[in-house]
């Protein structure tokens, strides 16, 4: 299925300039995606936060791009940025993310939330691009427009 880009944000130079997820344009080849948008937004916000905080924040030419596709009953969302390369052990850090049992922790919930909001995620840096691929299982049926 040919799905379109859902969001493209140019990061200028400062975090406060960025109102991420201020627009969410869905073009999913004429189909309504049935999903828990609250979970999607919570999980996506954490990934975008990390990209801004650790990769593109402060870079004058930093770009962050979100793409969406539907493959084999999964909503596949890719978050790409051209910022500082993510550490090579990011995938294993993500897979070891805790269960948030320390409810009074001031930080460290991001990856755990992503694990709860998506069925899987892949983190890699290729050809100077950080790419996070998120997988979300769709409801059994999609409704044609």
């Amino acid at each position, binding site marked *: 299925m040919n799905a379109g880009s859902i969001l493209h944000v140019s990061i200028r130079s400062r975090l406060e300039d960025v109102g991420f997820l201020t627009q969410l344009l869905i073009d999913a080849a004429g189909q309504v995606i049935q999903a828990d948008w*609250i979970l999607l937004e919570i999980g996506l916000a954490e990934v975008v936060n990390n990209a801004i*905080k650790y990769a593109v924040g402060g870079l004058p030419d930093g770009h962050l791009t979100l793409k969406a596709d539907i493959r084999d009953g999964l909503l596949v969302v890719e978050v790409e940025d051209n910022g500082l390369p993510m550490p090579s052990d990011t995938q294993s850090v993500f897979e070891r993310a805790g269960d948030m049992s320390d*409810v009074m922790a001031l930080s460290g*919930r991001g990856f755990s939330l992503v694990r709860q909001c998506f069925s899987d995620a892949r983190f890699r840096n290729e050809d100077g691009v950080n790419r996070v691929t998120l997988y979300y299982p769709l409801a059994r049926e999609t409704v044609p427009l």
Partner: protein
Amino acid sequence: MLTITHANGTNVLSIDVGRLDAAIAVRFKDTFLAQELSPGPVLIDMTGVSFIDSSGLGALISIVKHLKLPGRPGICGLQPSVKTMFSLTRMDRVFAIYPDVATALATPAQ
């Protein structure tokens, strides 16, 4: 961003920021910490918050730690997205959650 009123001896903190996220979490926490509260229980009214991320949650936890209250602070007015975030992160162990200010004030402090 933050309004403090007093009702029935309770400090009612009304947050009106829309999205309590990484973009404003530090500024929100600093604004709160600059306030002076009266002695007594604290109730946080989140009616004006439509979304919270982990940074916003961290700011709230930081405030709770700063307050050093004898029991759990009350919180109310959770919008659907905020309610989901609180469920995912087990915030019911940190806050006493009420549907609204009136219900919270009518309930004995925990």
